[in-house]
């Protein structure tokens, strides 16, 4: 047993799971399980769990499996086998200990990246099953503490970081002022009804990465676009409720987001470089409210930057010199097929690009997505060690000259940062916006 497996198998204390489980009884588990099965389990769940022929063809799709020395418990089908299949076999008559482990597997060992659905001959959807299990854990009150706290934040503030309404507008105005030091009369238009674009970001931007809002403002300004940001909750399109299985809060915050777009009378929502938020507004959250597709057009930054560069809306003064490699974020690549546009953008702004393989829609997840990084510090090393294959990819790219990794997704950033640091890879990590801001032609301050 090597180090990585040792980290994984050691008992990890999570207050949310432990204290939640302390209030559970086997009777309660059975009752909630049966309620949920009768109310929400359908043909998909039944087929995905019972029709797995145990062929193991999904195993190598999973970075956890590959990184943990091909430990079969980490194969996608293995995770179903240990959780939902067992629950169904026993009709919910399982122990509290079993549910603790089940919560851990569903929340911290699966990034819901859906890569396995591309490797399963039958297209069985393990992410769907894991989400169902997470919802069961939500209903039992044994979701991991940090992500549960984030879901609470969503329910109160509409954003994922407990950012209060005044703090939000204040940080926009602060970034506007900062940016005016560099570019005269630069404006971050707040609550501008009828603007073409509603620029939407996620909680960490005003809280920790305010420079991203600054950079976006510079880019919007240089491109001469008619854009706005709301002063109300609804500005944040991130969604950890989607990942805890609290579908009701998910629906509530998505409604807030879309109705903000409708109220502002924008033509579309352009969002920052975030993957899971895109999944929430493009695929999952809208459906929960009864919208087949998003009611207002939504574009991820990749698509937006692609348009700006293709249409010469922004000009590149001098391409980014260090060699870069590209990390494909699952939710916008496997989730929306933006890999070609991503490459168009990266090649347009960078001199030298080397690819990691597998890439494009067959990429490896960063191991932070699907809410796993949001389960917080207790689970950090488990996920970092659970992605040695990504570390190997990064090393390989580095050996071919890559000094910078471009990752147009917040959670990917968090995950890759930890991987780079832990494995001492020594690589810069950048958003597209970071590089565009750096290399674009900017109006000079008079």
């Amino acid at each position, binding site marked *: 047993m090597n180090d990585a497996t040792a980290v994984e198998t050691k008992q990890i204390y999570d207050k949310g799971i432990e204290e939640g489980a302390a209030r559970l009884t086997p009777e309660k588990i059975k009752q909630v399980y049966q309620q949920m099965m009768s109310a929400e389990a359908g043909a998909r769940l039944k087929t995905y769990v019972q029709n797995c022929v145990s062929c193991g063809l999904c195993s190598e799709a999973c970075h956890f499996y590959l990184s943990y020395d091909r430990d079969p418990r980490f194969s996608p089908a293995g995770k179903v086998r240990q959780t939902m299949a067992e629950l169904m076999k026993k009709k919910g008559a399982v122990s509290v200990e079993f549910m603790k482990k089940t919560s851990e597997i569903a929340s911290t060992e699966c990034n819901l990246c859906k890569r396995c659905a591309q490797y399963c001959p039958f297209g069985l959807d393990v992410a769907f099953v894991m989400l169902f299990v997470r919802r069961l854990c939500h*209903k039992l009150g044994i979701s991991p*503490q*940090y992500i549960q706290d984030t879901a609470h934040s969503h329910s109160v503030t509409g954003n994922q970081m407990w950012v209060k*309404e005044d703090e939000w507008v204040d940080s926009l105005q602060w970034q506007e002022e900062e940016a005016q030091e560099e570019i005269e009369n630069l404006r971050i238009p707040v609550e501008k009804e009828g603007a073409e674009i509603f620029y939407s970001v996620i909680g960490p931007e005003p809280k920790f990465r305010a420079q991203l809002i600054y950079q976006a403002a510079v880019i919007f300004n240089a491109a001469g676009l008619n854009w706005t940001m709301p*002063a109300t909750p609804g500005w944040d399109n991130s969604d950890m409720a989607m990942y805890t299985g609290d579908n009701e809060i998910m*629906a*509530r915050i998505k409604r807030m987001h879309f109705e903000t777009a409708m109220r502002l009378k924008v033509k579309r929502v352009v969002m920052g470089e975030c993957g899971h938020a895109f999944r929430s507004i493009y695929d999952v959250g809208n459906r929960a*409210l*009864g919208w*087949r597709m998003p009611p207002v057009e939504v574009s991820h930054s990749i698509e937006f930057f692609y348009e700006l560069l293709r249409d010469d809306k922004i000009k590149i003064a001098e391409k980014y010199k260090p060699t870069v490699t590209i990390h494909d974020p699952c939710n916008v690549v496997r989730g929306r097929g933006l890999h070609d546009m991503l490459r168009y953008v990266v090649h347009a702004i960078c001199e030298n690009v080397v690819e990691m393989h597998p890439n494009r829609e067959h990429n490896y997840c960063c191991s932070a997505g699907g809410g796993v990084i949001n389960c917080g510090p207790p689970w950090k090393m488990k996920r970092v060690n659970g992605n040695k294959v990504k570390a190997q990819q990064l090393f390989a790219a580095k050996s071919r000259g890559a000094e910078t990794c471009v990752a147009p997704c917040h959670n990917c950033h968090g995950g890759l940062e930890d991987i780079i640091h832990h494995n001492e890879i020594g690589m810069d990590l950048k958003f597209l916006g970071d590089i565009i801001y750096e290399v674009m032609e900017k109006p000079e301050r008079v």
Partner: protein
Amino acid sequence: MDRSQDWNWNSGKRIIAEFGKWEEAFDWVEEPYVSPDGDKIAAVVKTGEMEFSVCVNGSAWENTFDKVWYVRFAPDGRLTAIVSDTGAWTLAIDGNAWEETFDYIWDTRFTPDGQTIVCNAQQGMQYLLVKNGAPWGEATFANIGHTAVSPDGSRLAAVVQTEDFNEGDIFKFQEGCYTVAINGHAWERNFVNAWETSFSANNQHVATEVRLSLYDYTIAVDGKIWSATYPSVWKPVFNPRDTTVTAPVKSAGAWILACDGRPLWTNKYAQLWHHMYSPDGDKIAAIAAPKFGRWTMAVDDQPWSVTFGDFVSEAVFSPDGQRLACIGVDHKKHRIVVDGKPWSGDYDLAWQPVFSPDGQHVAARVEKDGLFSVVVDDQPLKESYRRCWDPVFSPDNQHLLVRALEGQGADTVYTRTVLPLSEILG
């Protein structure tokens, strides 16, 4: 209160301001706002280095500020803006700031008569509401949101945080740390969450959507909850005729309308929200999805036959409650729909339809290919504008007020035009 009988309803166009010239006078001009009567146009302007003001009809307020935002006309025509000076924030009305300042204020709201102006405020990391410049009382809270103002402005409600907890303390949160405060007085009972809040027509009662645990939602009226709980609920509304409360609630996987904790409507919807009473309280209309992905209006539980794929919004009853209009959007094309019949014109954007006082005519602001216009009874005006605002019918139903920006660049002018309906409809 409708003041439109006092406005100038003589037919004809007047140029109110040479808005395009403002750019020459100031090196920063934001998007303009216009007064309800159309006599004023205002925008945030920069008057000097880090010095801002509001320009009204060509001349800026004498007072300047470090920052000015959220310019809004009150229904009575007064012009408000949120302003700050050396880090102290307050509201300026027609150029004069409230005496009291705060660490931050935002979300200006007005009563229909415009006499009461309410803002959310933060002072020393504590939160409160401010009415006409004065705090709503002694009480402050750890957080505030979902503000509601009673129709007469006498009572203010907001969702407040009454218990402190540390980030990450999920179990304390689940015990309930939020409730509703009215004029600063919090209800006794705490909830896990409380969201949108409504006042009764007589200003006396307050209803809000609450979450009792992570799983049980219901409606609380004056702090007391309905006997039934649901997997989800939306905003409750009082019947204007009495104090019964209705709210969309989720039940057995579908949405229905409930009244005082009991099912009111029998049809099940994939979605049901923004329900509203006709002014006389006779009818209830709601935005509804009779099936997944298709949107329409349901009136007294009867969905219109026409449905839209993108969304339905901006529903409004005619003053007599007999008619209902909304916006329906399919494949990004906006249409005005009146009584279940979509108009022939489709647009890139459409704003909330406006009924004439007698309910006979409907008009709406629309945008297509970057040009704005007004459509009346499915008949677009001959002119299109760089920008325009919602049209207003005269009290006698004979005229329409159109407020618009015309011309290009420096020649842009703000015009106020009164058109006889007979001319528009030919």
